[in-house]
Protein backbone atom coordinates (compact mmCIF):
# COMPACT_ATOMS: atom_id res chain seq x y z
CA UNK A 1 0.00 0.00 0.00
CA UNK A 2 1.35 3.42 -0.72
CA UNK A 3 2.19 5.91 1.94
CA UNK A 4 -1.00 7.90 1.65
CA UNK A 5 -3.29 4.92 2.05
CA UNK A 6 -1.29 3.85 5.07
CA UNK A 7 -1.63 7.27 6.64
CA UNK A 8 -5.33 7.27 5.93
CA UNK A 9 -5.67 3.86 7.52
CA UNK A 10 -3.81 4.94 10.61
CA UNK A 11 -6.02 8.02 10.71
CA UNK A 12 -9.18 5.97 10.57
CA UNK A 13 -8.05 3.41 13.11
CA UNK A 14 -6.74 5.86 15.69
CA UNK A 15 -9.73 8.13 15.51
CA UNK A 16 -12.04 5.18 15.89
CA UNK A 17 -10.03 4.09 18.90
CA UNK A 18 -10.54 7.45 20.54
CA UNK A 19 -14.26 6.98 20.04
CA UNK A 20 -13.99 3.54 21.60
CA UNK A 21 -12.23 5.03 24.62
CA UNK A 22 -15.05 7.47 25.05
CA UNK A 23 -17.70 4.82 24.72
CA UNK A 24 -15.95 2.58 27.24
CA UNK A 25 -15.65 5.39 29.75
CA UNK A 26 -19.27 6.40 29.40
CA UNK A 27 -20.45 2.83 29.66
CA UNK A 28 -18.70 2.45 33.01
CA UNK A 29 -21.13 4.96 34.47
CA UNK A 30 -24.05 2.99 33.13
CA UNK A 31 -22.63 -0.29 34.37
CA UNK A 32 -22.33 1.20 37.84
CA UNK A 33 -25.86 2.55 37.82
CA UNK A 34 -27.16 -0.66 36.32
CA UNK A 35 -25.57 -2.86 38.98
CA UNK A 36 -26.83 -0.67 41.79
CA UNK A 37 -30.33 -0.71 40.38
CA UNK A 38 -30.27 -4.42 39.71
CA UNK A 39 -28.91 -5.49 43.07
CA UNK A 40 -30.27 -2.74 45.24
CA UNK A 41 -33.66 -1.68 43.99
CA UNK A 42 -35.60 -4.60 45.40
CA UNK A 43 -34.16 -4.07 48.88
CA UNK A 44 -35.48 -0.54 49.01
CA UNK A 45 -38.54 -1.27 51.05
CA UNK A 46 -40.32 0.48 53.86
CA UNK A 47 -38.19 -1.39 56.42
CA UNK A 48 -35.03 -0.04 54.91
CA UNK A 49 -36.03 3.56 55.39
CA UNK A 50 -37.69 3.32 58.78
CA UNK A 51 -36.14 0.57 60.86
CA UNK A 52 -32.97 0.43 62.87
CA UNK A 53 -30.28 -2.19 62.27
CA UNK A 54 -30.81 -5.58 63.89
CA UNK A 55 -28.20 -7.81 65.54
CA UNK A 56 -26.06 -9.89 63.17
CA UNK A 57 -27.96 -12.82 61.73
CA UNK A 58 -31.41 -11.35 62.16
CA UNK A 59 -33.09 -10.24 58.96
CA UNK A 60 -35.25 -7.26 58.27
CA UNK A 61 -33.33 -4.40 59.76
CA UNK A 62 -33.02 -1.06 58.09
CA UNK A 63 -30.78 1.94 57.82
CA UNK A 64 -33.01 4.68 59.09
CA UNK A 65 -30.41 5.85 61.58
CA UNK A 66 -27.70 5.97 58.94
CA UNK A 67 -29.82 8.11 56.64
CA UNK A 68 -30.73 10.55 59.40
CA UNK A 69 -27.17 10.48 60.69
CA UNK A 70 -25.79 11.39 57.30
CA UNK A 71 -28.27 14.25 57.04
CA UNK A 72 -27.23 15.54 60.45
CA UNK A 73 -23.50 15.27 59.86
CA UNK A 74 -23.54 16.70 56.35
CA UNK A 75 -26.02 19.38 57.37
CA UNK A 76 -23.80 20.64 60.16
CA UNK A 77 -20.72 20.42 57.95
CA UNK A 78 -22.51 22.59 55.40
CA UNK A 79 -23.54 25.08 58.09
CA UNK A 80 -19.93 25.40 59.16
CA UNK A 81 -18.20 25.12 55.84
CA UNK A 82 -20.35 27.15 53.46
CA UNK A 83 -20.16 30.51 55.26
CA UNK A 84 -16.42 30.21 55.85
CA UNK A 85 -15.73 29.10 52.31
CA UNK A 86 -18.00 31.72 50.83
CA UNK A 87 -16.46 34.63 52.70
CA UNK A 88 -12.95 33.41 52.00
CA UNK A 89 -13.85 33.22 48.33
CA UNK A 90 -15.21 36.76 48.43
CA UNK A 91 -11.90 37.88 49.86
CA UNK A 92 -9.90 36.20 47.13
CA UNK A 93 -12.04 37.65 44.38
CA UNK A 94 -12.56 41.17 45.65
CA UNK A 95 -9.73 42.11 47.92
CA UNK A 96 -6.47 41.03 46.46
CA UNK A 97 -3.62 42.00 48.75
CA UNK A 98 -0.19 41.49 47.32
CA UNK A 99 1.10 38.10 48.32
CA UNK A 100 -1.39 37.19 51.03
CA UNK A 101 -4.15 36.44 48.54
CA UNK A 102 -2.00 34.25 46.33
CA UNK A 103 -0.76 32.35 49.37
CA UNK A 104 -4.34 31.76 50.52
CA UNK A 105 -5.30 30.66 47.03
CA UNK A 106 -2.43 28.21 46.81
CA UNK A 107 -3.24 26.88 50.26
CA UNK A 108 -6.88 26.39 49.28
CA UNK A 109 -5.81 24.33 46.29
CA UNK A 110 -3.45 22.28 48.42
CA UNK A 111 -6.13 21.65 51.04
CA UNK A 112 -8.36 20.43 48.23
CA UNK A 113 -5.86 17.70 47.55
CA UNK A 114 -5.41 16.46 51.13
CA UNK A 115 -6.46 12.80 51.36
CA UNK A 116 -9.69 12.47 53.29
CA UNK A 117 -8.25 9.96 55.74
CA UNK A 118 -5.66 12.51 56.86
CA UNK A 119 -8.47 14.99 57.54
CA UNK A 120 -10.05 12.30 59.69
CA UNK A 121 -6.91 12.07 61.80
CA UNK A 122 -6.99 15.83 62.33
CA UNK A 123 -10.62 15.78 63.45
CA UNK A 124 -9.84 12.90 65.80
CA UNK A 125 -7.08 14.87 67.50
CA UNK A 126 -9.01 18.12 67.62
CA UNK A 127 -12.49 16.96 68.55
CA UNK A 128 -12.72 13.32 69.55
CA UNK A 129 -9.93 13.29 72.12
CA UNK A 130 -10.91 16.46 74.01
CA UNK A 131 -14.60 15.57 73.87
CA UNK A 132 -13.75 12.08 75.04
CA UNK A 133 -16.17 10.53 72.64
CA UNK A 134 -16.67 9.95 68.97
CA UNK A 135 -19.44 12.17 67.72
CA UNK A 136 -21.36 13.45 64.78
CA UNK A 137 -19.74 16.81 65.50
CA UNK A 138 -16.26 15.40 64.90
CA UNK A 139 -17.48 13.94 61.62
CA UNK A 140 -19.00 17.26 60.63
CA UNK A 141 -15.79 19.12 61.38
CA UNK A 142 -13.82 16.67 59.25
CA UNK A 143 -16.26 17.11 56.37
CA UNK A 144 -16.35 20.88 56.79
CA UNK A 145 -12.57 20.89 56.53
CA UNK A 146 -12.94 19.31 53.11
CA UNK A 147 -15.84 21.51 52.05
CA UNK A 148 -14.24 24.88 52.80
CA UNK A 149 -11.52 24.84 50.11
CA UNK A 150 -14.02 23.68 47.48
CA UNK A 151 -16.50 26.44 48.22
CA UNK A 152 -13.72 29.03 48.49
CA UNK A 153 -12.33 28.39 45.05
CA UNK A 154 -15.75 28.05 43.44
CA UNK A 155 -16.97 31.31 44.95
CA UNK A 156 -13.82 33.08 43.85
CA UNK A 157 -14.05 31.68 40.33
CA UNK A 158 -17.62 32.77 39.76
CA UNK A 159 -17.24 36.14 41.42
CA UNK A 160 -14.35 36.90 39.12
CA UNK A 161 -16.54 36.24 36.14
CA UNK A 162 -18.92 39.03 37.07
CA UNK A 163 -18.16 41.78 34.56
CA UNK A 164 -16.13 44.72 35.74
CA UNK A 165 -18.68 47.06 34.22
CA UNK A 166 -21.35 45.92 36.66
CA UNK A 167 -19.12 46.58 39.62
CA UNK A 168 -17.94 49.93 38.40
CA UNK A 169 -21.50 50.95 37.73
CA UNK A 170 -22.46 50.27 41.32
CA UNK A 171 -19.42 52.05 42.67
CA UNK A 172 -20.03 55.02 40.40
CA UNK A 173 -23.53 55.31 41.87
CA UNK A 174 -21.94 55.81 45.26
CA UNK A 175 -22.19 52.33 46.76
CA UNK A 176 -19.47 51.40 49.22
CA UNK A 177 -17.36 48.44 48.30
CA UNK A 178 -19.03 45.99 50.63
CA UNK A 179 -22.47 47.10 49.52
CA UNK A 180 -21.45 46.66 45.92
CA UNK A 181 -20.27 43.13 46.62
CA UNK A 182 -23.34 42.21 48.60
CA UNK A 183 -25.97 43.66 46.31
CA UNK A 184 -24.40 43.47 42.87
CA UNK A 185 -21.43 41.14 42.52
CA UNK A 186 -22.67 38.23 44.59
CA UNK A 187 -26.18 38.14 43.14
CA UNK A 188 -24.67 38.32 39.67
CA UNK A 189 -22.43 35.37 40.36
CA UNK A 190 -24.96 33.58 42.52
CA UNK A 191 -25.73 30.81 40.07
CA UNK A 192 -22.15 29.68 39.90
CA UNK A 193 -21.56 30.16 43.60
CA UNK A 194 -24.62 28.10 44.43
CA UNK A 195 -23.43 25.41 42.04
CA UNK A 196 -20.14 25.26 43.83
CA UNK A 197 -21.85 24.87 47.17
CA UNK A 198 -24.17 22.13 45.96
CA UNK A 199 -21.31 20.24 44.32
CA UNK A 200 -19.20 20.59 47.44
CA UNK A 201 -21.94 19.27 49.69
CA UNK A 202 -22.60 16.40 47.28
CA UNK A 203 -18.93 15.52 47.35
CA UNK A 204 -18.65 15.39 51.14
CA UNK A 205 -21.88 13.49 51.60
CA UNK A 206 -20.27 10.50 49.91
CA UNK A 207 -17.11 10.55 51.99
CA UNK A 208 -16.59 7.57 54.24
CA UNK A 209 -12.95 7.64 55.29
CA UNK A 210 -13.07 10.80 57.44
CA UNK A 211 -16.06 9.42 59.35
CA UNK A 212 -14.58 6.02 60.15
CA UNK A 213 -13.13 6.96 63.47
CA UNK A 214 -14.68 10.35 64.07
CA UNK A 215 -18.37 9.63 63.93
CA UNK A 216 -17.83 5.88 64.23
CA UNK A 217 -21.23 4.15 64.16
CA UNK A 218 -24.35 3.65 66.22
CA UNK A 219 -27.05 0.99 66.40
CA UNK A 220 -29.54 3.60 67.48
CA UNK A 221 -30.18 7.21 66.65
CA UNK A 222 -26.99 9.09 67.21
CA UNK A 223 -26.55 12.79 67.46
CA UNK A 224 -23.97 15.45 67.19
CA UNK A 225 -22.54 14.72 70.60
CA UNK A 226 -22.33 10.96 70.28
CA UNK A 227 -21.33 8.31 67.77
CA UNK A 228 -23.57 8.44 64.74
CA UNK A 229 -24.24 6.08 61.90
CA UNK A 230 -23.82 7.38 58.38
CA UNK A 231 -24.64 5.96 54.97
CA UNK A 232 -21.11 5.77 53.54
CA UNK A 233 -19.65 4.07 56.61
CA UNK A 234 -22.56 1.63 56.72
CA UNK A 235 -22.07 0.74 53.06
CA UNK A 236 -18.46 -0.14 53.84
CA UNK A 237 -19.35 -2.32 56.81
CA UNK A 238 -22.29 -4.02 55.13
CA UNK A 239 -20.40 -4.71 51.90
CA UNK A 240 -17.47 -6.37 53.65
CA UNK A 241 -19.65 -8.50 55.93
CA UNK A 242 -20.56 -12.10 55.16
CA UNK A 243 -24.32 -11.86 55.79
CA UNK A 244 -26.36 -11.92 52.58
CA UNK A 245 -29.02 -9.72 54.14
CA UNK A 246 -26.40 -7.09 55.00
CA UNK A 247 -24.92 -7.27 51.50
CA UNK A 248 -28.36 -6.58 50.05
CA UNK A 249 -28.70 -3.60 52.33
CA UNK A 250 -25.31 -2.37 51.15
CA UNK A 251 -26.56 -2.33 47.56
CA UNK A 252 -29.72 -0.53 48.56
CA UNK A 253 -27.78 2.04 50.55
CA UNK A 254 -25.39 2.48 47.65
CA UNK A 255 -28.33 3.12 45.36
CA UNK A 256 -29.75 5.74 47.72
CA UNK A 257 -26.38 7.45 48.10
CA UNK A 258 -25.56 7.52 44.41
CA UNK A 259 -29.03 8.79 43.56
CA UNK A 260 -28.64 11.69 45.98
CA UNK A 261 -25.13 12.53 44.79
CA UNK A 262 -25.95 12.32 41.09
CA UNK A 263 -29.19 14.27 41.47
CA UNK A 264 -27.31 17.02 43.29
CA UNK A 265 -24.68 17.10 40.56
CA UNK A 266 -27.22 17.20 37.76
CA UNK A 267 -29.23 19.87 39.53
CA UNK A 268 -26.15 21.98 40.10
CA UNK A 269 -25.08 21.85 36.49
CA UNK A 270 -28.56 22.59 35.26
CA UNK A 271 -28.60 25.63 37.52
CA UNK A 272 -25.47 26.76 35.80
CA UNK A 273 -26.94 25.84 32.41
CA UNK A 274 -23.76 25.77 30.47
CA UNK A 275 -21.07 23.16 29.85
CA UNK A 276 -18.48 23.87 32.47
CA UNK A 277 -15.52 21.80 33.37
CA UNK A 278 -14.98 19.88 36.57
CA UNK A 279 -13.69 22.23 39.23
CA UNK A 280 -9.94 22.09 39.47
CA UNK A 281 -9.64 20.07 42.65
Amino acid at each position, binding site marked *: MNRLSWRKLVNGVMLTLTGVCTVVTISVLFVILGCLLYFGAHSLNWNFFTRLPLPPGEEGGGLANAIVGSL*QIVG*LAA*LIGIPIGFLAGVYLAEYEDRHFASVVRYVADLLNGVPSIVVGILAWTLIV*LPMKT*QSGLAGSVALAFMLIPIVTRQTEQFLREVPLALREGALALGASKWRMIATVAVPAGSKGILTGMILGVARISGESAPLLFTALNNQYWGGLR*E*PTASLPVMIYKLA*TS*PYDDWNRQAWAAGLVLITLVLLANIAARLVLARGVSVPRG
Partner: protein
Amino acid sequence: MRTISVALMGLLVMATAPFAAAQKLNACGATFPDPIYKKWFSEFGKTHQGAQINYEANGSGGGVKGVTNGTVDFGASDMPMTDQELAAVKNGKILHFPTVLGAVVPIYNLPGVTQELKFSGPVLADIFLGSISKWSDKRIAADNPGVKLPDEEIVVVHRTDGSGTTFVWTDFLAKVSPEWKSKVGAAKDVSWPKGLGGAQNAGVTGLVKQNPNSLGYVELVFAVQNKMGHGQVKNANGTFVKASVETVTEAAAGAAKNMPADFRVSITNAPGKNAYPISSFTWLLIPSKFSDPAKARQVKEMLHWVLTDGQVFCAGLSYAPLPLAVVTREEKQIDAIH
Protein backbone atom coordinates in the same frame (compact mmCIF):
# COMPACT_ATOMS: atom_id res chain seq x y z
CA MET B 1 -33.21 28.83 51.18
CA ARG B 2 -30.61 28.76 53.83
CA THR B 3 -33.14 29.66 56.53
CA ILE B 4 -35.17 26.66 55.50
CA SER B 5 -32.20 24.35 55.82
CA VAL B 6 -31.29 25.82 59.20
CA ALA B 7 -34.83 25.25 60.37
CA LEU B 8 -34.76 21.69 59.06
CA MET B 9 -31.50 21.06 60.87
CA GLY B 10 -33.00 22.41 64.07
CA LEU B 11 -35.98 20.10 63.65
CA LEU B 12 -33.74 17.13 63.06
CA VAL B 13 -31.62 17.82 66.10
CA MET B 14 -34.72 18.31 68.18
CA ALA B 15 -36.20 15.12 66.77
CA THR B 16 -33.46 13.17 68.46
CA ALA B 17 -34.12 14.83 71.79
CA PRO B 18 -36.84 12.43 72.99
CA PHE B 19 -34.30 9.65 72.90
CA ALA B 20 -32.21 11.58 75.35
CA ALA B 21 -34.66 10.66 78.07
CA ALA B 22 -33.54 7.01 78.22
CA GLN B 23 -30.08 6.42 79.63
CA LYS B 24 -27.58 6.06 76.82
CA LEU B 25 -24.30 4.28 77.07
CA ASN B 26 -21.60 4.05 74.45
CA ALA B 27 -19.36 1.03 74.24
CA CYS B 28 -17.01 -0.47 71.72
CA GLY B 29 -14.67 -3.41 71.40
CA ALA B 30 -14.47 -7.06 70.49
CA THR B 31 -16.25 -8.54 67.50
CA PHE B 32 -15.91 -12.06 68.97
CA PRO B 33 -19.00 -11.58 71.17
CA ASP B 34 -20.66 -9.00 68.93
CA PRO B 35 -23.72 -11.11 68.02
CA ILE B 36 -24.54 -11.94 71.64
CA TYR B 37 -23.83 -8.43 72.92
CA LYS B 38 -26.06 -6.87 70.28
CA LYS B 39 -28.76 -9.41 71.18
CA TRP B 40 -28.29 -8.74 74.88
CA PHE B 41 -28.40 -4.97 74.66
CA SER B 42 -31.43 -5.15 72.41
CA GLU B 43 -33.24 -7.40 74.91
CA PHE B 44 -32.04 -5.36 77.89
CA GLY B 45 -33.44 -2.24 76.27
CA LYS B 46 -36.83 -3.91 75.83
CA THR B 47 -37.15 -4.71 79.52
CA HIS B 48 -35.40 -1.68 81.05
CA GLN B 49 -37.28 1.46 79.97
CA GLY B 50 -35.73 1.64 76.55
CA ALA B 51 -32.14 1.88 77.77
CA GLN B 52 -29.88 2.32 74.79
CA ILE B 53 -26.50 0.69 74.93
CA ASN B 54 -24.73 1.42 71.68
CA TYR B 55 -22.09 -1.23 71.09
CA GLU B 56 -19.75 -0.66 68.18
CA ALA B 57 -17.72 -3.73 67.34
CA ASN B 58 -14.44 -2.38 66.07
CA GLY B 59 -12.16 -5.00 67.59
CA SER B 60 -10.70 -5.69 71.03
CA GLY B 61 -7.95 -3.18 70.34
CA GLY B 62 -10.60 -0.52 69.88
CA GLY B 63 -12.20 -1.49 73.18
CA VAL B 64 -8.94 -1.20 75.06
CA LYS B 65 -8.10 2.11 73.39
CA GLY B 66 -11.59 3.40 74.13
CA VAL B 67 -11.44 2.77 77.86
CA THR B 68 -7.84 3.97 78.04
CA ASN B 69 -8.71 7.32 76.51
CA GLY B 70 -12.11 7.50 78.13
CA THR B 71 -13.89 7.91 74.78
CA VAL B 72 -16.46 5.23 75.65
CA ASP B 73 -18.38 4.31 78.79
CA PHE B 74 -17.06 0.75 78.76
CA GLY B 75 -15.21 -1.59 76.44
CA ALA B 76 -14.95 -5.23 75.51
CA SER B 77 -12.03 -7.46 74.71
CA ASP B 78 -11.24 -11.14 74.21
CA MET B 79 -7.74 -10.53 75.47
CA PRO B 80 -7.45 -9.37 79.07
CA MET B 81 -5.68 -6.07 79.37
CA THR B 82 -1.98 -6.44 80.08
CA ASP B 83 -0.39 -4.78 83.09
CA GLN B 84 1.13 -2.24 80.73
CA GLU B 85 -2.24 -1.43 79.20
CA LEU B 86 -3.87 -1.15 82.63
CA ALA B 87 -1.17 1.24 83.78
CA ALA B 88 -1.86 3.50 80.82
CA VAL B 89 -5.51 4.03 81.72
CA LYS B 90 -6.09 7.68 82.38
CA ASN B 91 -8.82 7.76 84.98
CA GLY B 92 -9.00 5.08 87.62
CA LYS B 93 -9.01 1.32 87.32
CA ILE B 94 -10.53 -1.06 84.82
CA LEU B 95 -12.37 -4.14 86.07
CA HIS B 96 -12.61 -7.28 83.95
CA PHE B 97 -15.98 -9.02 83.78
CA PRO B 98 -16.08 -12.31 81.84
CA THR B 99 -19.42 -12.51 80.03
CA VAL B 100 -19.46 -15.63 77.87
CA LEU B 101 -17.30 -18.41 76.60
CA GLY B 102 -16.69 -18.73 72.91
CA ALA B 103 -14.58 -20.64 70.43
CA VAL B 104 -12.33 -19.58 67.58
CA VAL B 105 -12.63 -22.00 64.69
CA PRO B 106 -10.63 -22.51 61.50
CA ILE B 107 -13.12 -21.49 58.83
CA TYR B 108 -12.55 -22.54 55.24
CA ASN B 109 -14.02 -22.33 51.78
CA LEU B 110 -13.27 -25.48 49.79
CA PRO B 111 -15.64 -25.99 46.92
CA GLY B 112 -16.26 -29.67 46.42
CA VAL B 113 -15.17 -30.79 49.89
CA THR B 114 -18.20 -31.77 51.89
CA GLN B 115 -16.59 -33.56 54.82
CA GLU B 116 -15.58 -31.73 57.95
CA LEU B 117 -11.82 -31.22 57.99
CA LYS B 118 -9.54 -31.97 60.91
CA PHE B 119 -6.58 -29.77 61.79
CA SER B 120 -3.82 -30.34 64.28
CA GLY B 121 -2.21 -27.35 65.97
CA PRO B 122 1.26 -27.50 64.41
CA VAL B 123 -0.33 -27.87 60.94
CA LEU B 124 -2.38 -24.72 61.49
CA ALA B 125 0.73 -22.88 62.65
CA ASP B 126 2.67 -23.96 59.60
CA ILE B 127 -0.14 -22.95 57.27
CA PHE B 128 -0.17 -19.48 58.74
CA LEU B 129 3.62 -19.36 58.73
CA GLY B 130 3.66 -20.31 55.08
CA SER B 131 5.61 -23.56 55.42
CA ILE B 132 2.52 -25.47 54.30
CA SER B 133 1.23 -23.77 51.18
CA LYS B 134 -1.14 -26.20 49.44
CA TRP B 135 -4.29 -27.96 50.51
CA SER B 136 -2.91 -31.20 49.09
CA ASP B 137 0.04 -31.12 51.52
CA LYS B 138 0.85 -34.52 53.06
CA ARG B 139 0.42 -33.29 56.62
CA ILE B 140 -3.12 -32.04 56.06
CA ALA B 141 -3.94 -35.26 54.23
CA ALA B 142 -2.54 -37.27 57.15
CA ASP B 143 -5.10 -35.72 59.48
CA ASN B 144 -7.88 -36.18 56.95
CA PRO B 145 -7.71 -39.72 55.55
CA GLY B 146 -10.06 -40.35 52.69
CA VAL B 147 -10.77 -36.71 51.92
CA LYS B 148 -9.96 -35.52 48.42
CA LEU B 149 -8.18 -32.19 48.90
CA PRO B 150 -7.53 -29.97 45.88
CA ASP B 151 -3.99 -29.24 44.76
CA GLU B 152 -4.49 -25.52 45.25
CA GLU B 153 -2.67 -22.85 47.19
CA ILE B 154 -4.18 -22.08 50.56
CA VAL B 155 -5.43 -18.49 50.68
CA VAL B 156 -4.72 -17.49 54.26
CA VAL B 157 -7.03 -14.87 55.77
CA HIS B 158 -6.34 -12.96 58.98
CA ARG B 159 -7.36 -9.77 60.77
CA THR B 160 -6.14 -6.28 59.94
CA ASP B 161 -7.26 -4.71 63.19
CA GLY B 162 -6.26 -5.19 66.82
CA SER B 163 -8.31 -8.25 67.67
CA GLY B 164 -8.89 -10.38 70.73
CA THR B 165 -9.85 -13.20 68.36
CA THR B 166 -6.36 -12.89 66.90
CA PHE B 167 -4.94 -13.09 70.41
CA VAL B 168 -6.85 -16.30 71.19
CA TRP B 169 -5.78 -17.82 67.87
CA THR B 170 -2.13 -16.84 68.15
CA ASP B 171 -2.06 -17.77 71.83
CA PHE B 172 -3.08 -21.29 70.83
CA LEU B 173 -0.57 -21.40 67.96
CA ALA B 174 2.21 -20.20 70.24
CA LYS B 175 1.41 -22.99 72.67
CA VAL B 176 1.53 -25.73 70.03
CA SER B 177 4.31 -24.41 67.80
CA PRO B 178 7.62 -23.14 69.19
CA GLU B 179 8.43 -21.72 65.76
CA TRP B 180 5.27 -19.61 65.81
CA LYS B 181 6.02 -18.44 69.32
CA SER B 182 9.49 -17.21 68.44
CA LYS B 183 8.77 -15.84 64.97
CA VAL B 184 5.40 -14.19 65.49
CA GLY B 185 4.17 -14.43 69.05
CA ALA B 186 0.74 -13.96 70.55
CA ALA B 187 -1.00 -10.59 70.63
CA LYS B 188 -4.02 -8.68 69.39
CA ASP B 189 -2.10 -7.56 66.32
CA VAL B 190 0.90 -9.42 64.96
CA SER B 191 3.17 -9.29 61.96
CA TRP B 192 1.51 -11.91 59.76
CA PRO B 193 3.89 -13.88 57.53
CA LYS B 194 1.30 -14.05 54.77
CA GLY B 195 -2.32 -13.74 53.86
CA LEU B 196 -5.18 -11.40 53.09
CA GLY B 197 -6.45 -9.07 55.78
CA GLY B 198 -10.08 -8.45 56.71
CA ALA B 199 -11.50 -6.02 59.25
CA GLN B 200 -13.24 -7.58 62.25
CA ASN B 201 -14.69 -11.07 62.44
CA ALA B 202 -17.26 -10.09 59.85
CA GLY B 203 -14.58 -9.00 57.41
CA VAL B 204 -12.61 -12.24 57.75
CA THR B 205 -15.77 -14.29 57.28
CA GLY B 206 -16.62 -12.21 54.24
CA LEU B 207 -13.19 -12.71 52.69
CA VAL B 208 -13.26 -16.45 53.26
CA LYS B 209 -16.75 -16.61 51.79
CA GLN B 210 -15.65 -14.72 48.68
CA ASN B 211 -12.33 -16.49 48.07
CA PRO B 212 -12.24 -20.17 47.15
CA ASN B 213 -9.54 -22.29 48.79
CA SER B 214 -9.23 -19.91 51.70
CA LEU B 215 -8.66 -20.55 55.39
CA GLY B 216 -9.26 -18.07 58.18
CA TYR B 217 -10.14 -17.95 61.87
CA VAL B 218 -13.34 -16.56 63.33
CA GLU B 219 -15.60 -16.92 66.32
CA LEU B 220 -17.87 -19.93 66.00
CA VAL B 221 -21.13 -18.04 65.56
CA PHE B 222 -19.89 -16.33 62.38
CA ALA B 223 -19.21 -19.69 60.75
CA VAL B 224 -22.54 -21.08 61.92
CA GLN B 225 -24.69 -18.11 60.92
CA ASN B 226 -23.16 -18.06 57.46
CA LYS B 227 -23.31 -21.85 57.10
CA MET B 228 -19.62 -22.09 56.33
CA GLY B 229 -17.33 -25.06 56.83
CA HIS B 230 -15.27 -25.01 59.98
CA GLY B 231 -12.86 -27.67 61.10
CA GLN B 232 -12.19 -29.81 64.13
CA VAL B 233 -8.99 -29.09 66.02
CA LYS B 234 -6.76 -31.50 67.87
CA ASN B 235 -6.67 -30.72 71.56
CA ALA B 236 -3.98 -31.24 74.19
CA ASN B 237 -5.34 -34.72 74.79
CA GLY B 238 -4.79 -35.74 71.17
CA THR B 239 -8.47 -35.86 70.22
CA PHE B 240 -9.97 -33.98 67.31
CA VAL B 241 -12.73 -31.87 68.80
CA LYS B 242 -15.47 -29.83 67.18
CA ALA B 243 -16.31 -26.50 68.75
CA SER B 244 -19.64 -26.54 70.56
CA VAL B 245 -21.23 -25.32 73.77
CA GLU B 246 -20.24 -28.55 75.54
CA THR B 247 -16.65 -28.75 74.38
CA VAL B 248 -16.07 -25.08 75.18
CA THR B 249 -17.58 -25.49 78.64
CA GLU B 250 -15.25 -28.40 79.27
CA ALA B 251 -12.27 -26.25 78.30
CA ALA B 252 -13.27 -23.71 80.93
CA ALA B 253 -13.76 -26.26 83.70
CA GLY B 254 -10.25 -25.96 85.07
CA ALA B 255 -10.27 -22.19 84.95
CA ALA B 256 -13.64 -22.07 86.71
CA LYS B 257 -12.07 -23.76 89.67
CA ASN B 258 -8.91 -21.67 89.75
CA MET B 259 -10.06 -18.27 88.52
CA PRO B 260 -7.66 -15.48 89.51
CA ALA B 261 -9.07 -12.54 91.45
CA ASP B 262 -9.03 -10.16 88.52
CA PHE B 263 -10.57 -12.74 86.15
CA ARG B 264 -7.69 -12.49 83.65
CA VAL B 265 -7.01 -15.98 82.37
CA SER B 266 -6.30 -17.90 79.17
CA ILE B 267 -7.92 -21.25 78.49
CA THR B 268 -6.40 -22.16 75.15
CA ASN B 269 -5.09 -25.71 74.77
CA ALA B 270 -6.82 -26.62 78.03
CA PRO B 271 -6.62 -30.19 79.35
CA GLY B 272 -9.71 -32.34 79.11
CA LYS B 273 -10.78 -35.26 76.98
CA ASN B 274 -13.28 -33.31 74.91
CA ALA B 275 -12.11 -29.81 75.59
CA TYR B 276 -12.06 -27.56 72.53
CA PRO B 277 -8.53 -26.19 72.44
CA ILE B 278 -9.20 -22.73 71.02
CA SER B 279 -11.73 -21.52 73.55
CA SER B 280 -11.76 -18.28 75.44
CA PHE B 281 -13.61 -16.12 77.88
CA THR B 282 -14.46 -12.66 76.68
CA TRP B 283 -14.52 -9.69 79.02
CA LEU B 284 -16.31 -6.43 79.45
CA LEU B 285 -13.86 -3.73 80.48
CA ILE B 286 -15.68 -1.63 83.06
CA PRO B 287 -14.17 1.44 84.71
CA SER B 288 -14.43 1.25 88.47
CA LYS B 289 -15.45 4.89 88.72
CA PHE B 290 -18.09 6.76 86.75
CA SER B 291 -18.42 10.52 86.91
CA ASP B 292 -22.17 10.20 86.26
CA PRO B 293 -23.99 8.17 88.97
CA ALA B 294 -26.86 7.43 86.58
CA LYS B 295 -24.42 5.76 84.22
CA ALA B 296 -22.86 3.76 87.04
CA ARG B 297 -26.29 2.52 88.04
CA GLN B 298 -27.16 1.56 84.47
CA VAL B 299 -23.89 -0.31 84.02
CA LYS B 300 -24.39 -2.25 87.26
CA GLU B 301 -27.93 -3.17 86.25
CA MET B 302 -26.70 -4.26 82.85
CA LEU B 303 -23.94 -6.41 84.34
CA HIS B 304 -26.32 -8.04 86.75
CA TRP B 305 -28.73 -8.81 83.93
CA VAL B 306 -25.98 -10.13 81.67
CA LEU B 307 -24.72 -12.51 84.32
CA THR B 308 -28.17 -13.91 85.08
CA ASP B 309 -31.01 -13.41 82.61
CA GLY B 310 -28.70 -12.83 79.70
CA GLN B 311 -27.02 -16.22 79.91
CA VAL B 312 -30.06 -17.99 78.46
CA PHE B 313 -29.43 -16.39 75.07
CA CYS B 314 -25.94 -17.85 74.80
CA ALA B 315 -26.62 -21.33 73.50
CA GLY B 316 -28.84 -20.04 70.71
CA LEU B 317 -25.85 -18.17 69.32
CA SER B 318 -23.37 -21.00 69.96
CA TYR B 319 -21.71 -19.36 72.96
CA ALA B 320 -21.28 -21.25 76.22
CA PRO B 321 -22.70 -19.68 79.39
CA LEU B 322 -20.40 -18.86 82.28
CA PRO B 323 -19.73 -21.45 84.98
CA LEU B 324 -21.78 -20.65 88.08
CA ALA B 325 -18.72 -20.37 90.30
CA VAL B 326 -17.43 -17.56 88.10
CA VAL B 327 -20.79 -15.78 88.08
CA THR B 328 -20.97 -15.72 91.87
CA ARG B 329 -17.56 -14.13 92.14
CA GLU B 330 -18.37 -11.58 89.44
CA GLU B 331 -21.55 -10.50 91.23
CA LYS B 332 -19.31 -9.52 94.12
CA GLN B 333 -17.08 -7.48 91.81
CA ILE B 334 -20.06 -5.45 90.61
CA ASP B 335 -20.09 -3.78 94.02
CA ALA B 336 -16.69 -2.31 93.27
CA ILE B 337 -18.23 -0.04 90.65
CA HIS B 338 -19.36 3.41 91.74
